């Protein structure tokens, strides 16, 4: 049994709130630079230049990449031999979010109730997912998720008969209908299988992969490559103004499912595809 004081978790979350919002990951940054080289439209090149310059400014000046500093989504991988002391895990995470968003000049975008809509003024509460694992490790991943891209996401309960082609067409259709709204170039997370809510979780988790990281199963790796190519022929382009660079990558996660079902979820992320992890 290893003891871990939740104060350490608060401190780590606070740091990640700021770091994730100021520094675009190197994988995304490099992919934007590569895409700039292959973009074919003038307006597309121009927009990519501005997006790259924006990432440089935010990093150098430690200011938010985007004013929408997101919903605080937190994934915890908790080793079952870790004993958390010093208070509640949820409270510790929320305290980290509160401190990070206030001290880091990040925007507070959360309303307390979806219909009565009063701002909580500190960006809490976070959405927290905990996975229990064997061992005594503790890993936190912090994902600030912007509203514009989240709003273009969808879960569809398809028929098993729709098969691979039906799933691919749904994904393409979802991206096409999103147009400029999710701030393309986008990252596409796909969850196939499981139950209704499991597919959505898979799609969100898929977005945690590094740009360029393919599925370990060659079947899904091939599907990811094919979808990326098809998406980049739609023509939406940077900011929807026309061009090749509609998506930076497509990530698929699959899960066993019921003989009657074929749930498919598409979770869209924008070019401000932010996430940071820490192991305590």
């Amino acid at each position, binding site marked *: 049994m290893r003891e871990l004081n939740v104060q350490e978790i608060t401190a780590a979350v606070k740091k990640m709130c700021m770091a994730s919002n100021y520094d675009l990951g190197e994988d995304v940054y490099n992919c934007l630079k590569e895409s700039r080289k292959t973009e074919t439209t003038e*307006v597309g090149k121009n927009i990519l230049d501005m997006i790259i310059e924006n990432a440089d400014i935010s990093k150098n000046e430690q*200011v938010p990449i*985007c004013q929408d500093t997101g919903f605080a989504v937190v994934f915890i991988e908790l080793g079952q031999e870790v004993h958390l002391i010093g208070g509640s895990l949820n409270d510790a995470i929320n305290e980290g979010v509160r401190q990070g968003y206030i001290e880091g000049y990040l*925007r507070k975008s959360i309303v307390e109730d979806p219909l009565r809509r009063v701002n909580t003024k500190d960006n809490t509460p976070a959405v927290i997912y905990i996975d229990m694992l064997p061992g005594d490790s503790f890993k936190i991943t912090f994902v600030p998720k912007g509203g*514009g891209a989240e709003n273009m996401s969808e879960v569809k309960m398809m028929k098993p008969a729709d098969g691979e082609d039906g799933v691919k067409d749904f994904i393409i259709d979802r991206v096409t209908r999103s147009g400029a709204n999710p701030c393309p170039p986008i990252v596409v997370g796909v969850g196939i299988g499981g139950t209704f809510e499991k597919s959505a979780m898979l799609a969100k988790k898929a977005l945690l992969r590094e740009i360029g990281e393919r599925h370990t199963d060659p079947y899904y790796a091939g599907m990811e490559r094919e979808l990326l190519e098809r998406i980049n022929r739609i*023509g939406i382009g940077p900011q929807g103004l026309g061009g090749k660079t509609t998506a930076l990558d497509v990530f698929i996660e699959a899960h066993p499912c019921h003989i009657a079902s074929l749930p498919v979820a598409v979770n869209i992320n924008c070019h401000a595809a932010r996430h940071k992890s820490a192991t305590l």
Partner: protein
Amino acid sequence: MKVITTPLSNTDVEDLRAGDTVKITGIIYTARDAAHKRLVDLLDQGKELPFDINGQLIYYVGPSPAKPGQAIGSAGPTTSYRMDPYAPRLIEAGQKGMIGKGEMGPEVVEAMKKHKAVYFAAVGGAGALIAKSVKKSEIVAYEDLGAEAVRRLEVEDFPAVVVQDAHGGNFYVEGKENFVKSLS
């Protein structure tokens, strides 16, 4: 590249075509969902708006808090279709343009054609870069809304692209079609 100065006249609006790259200088006002609801409620009650909307541009933005020494925090556009229910009323009241991201609906396009207004896209997710073109920012109404308050911004060379114009032109459609044609 066209340089435009606010406020805009009908002729200024009619000169702008979908696809034009522009730099905007002058005063622009900010408002998002919650502020729009209040502005339209005022119009419904026959009351005055908290600022003179004639010839003005409204930028759909909820900036992040300014750090000490900054005029404004990061300040990129939010998605515009959420303002579709409100924009036609404000255009009718004299607003000459919107700045946001993503396509606006047919009811807005109708109002733009009828009353002469233009819609610009700013670069979504480039909030740190766009903030550089904002020289001054002050809250003019609805301070209680925080990031969603109405602000009066003084901007210089604010980068944008005309995406939907007063003639029915739509660059979201044209830009995509041009690219697809270039593939064949």
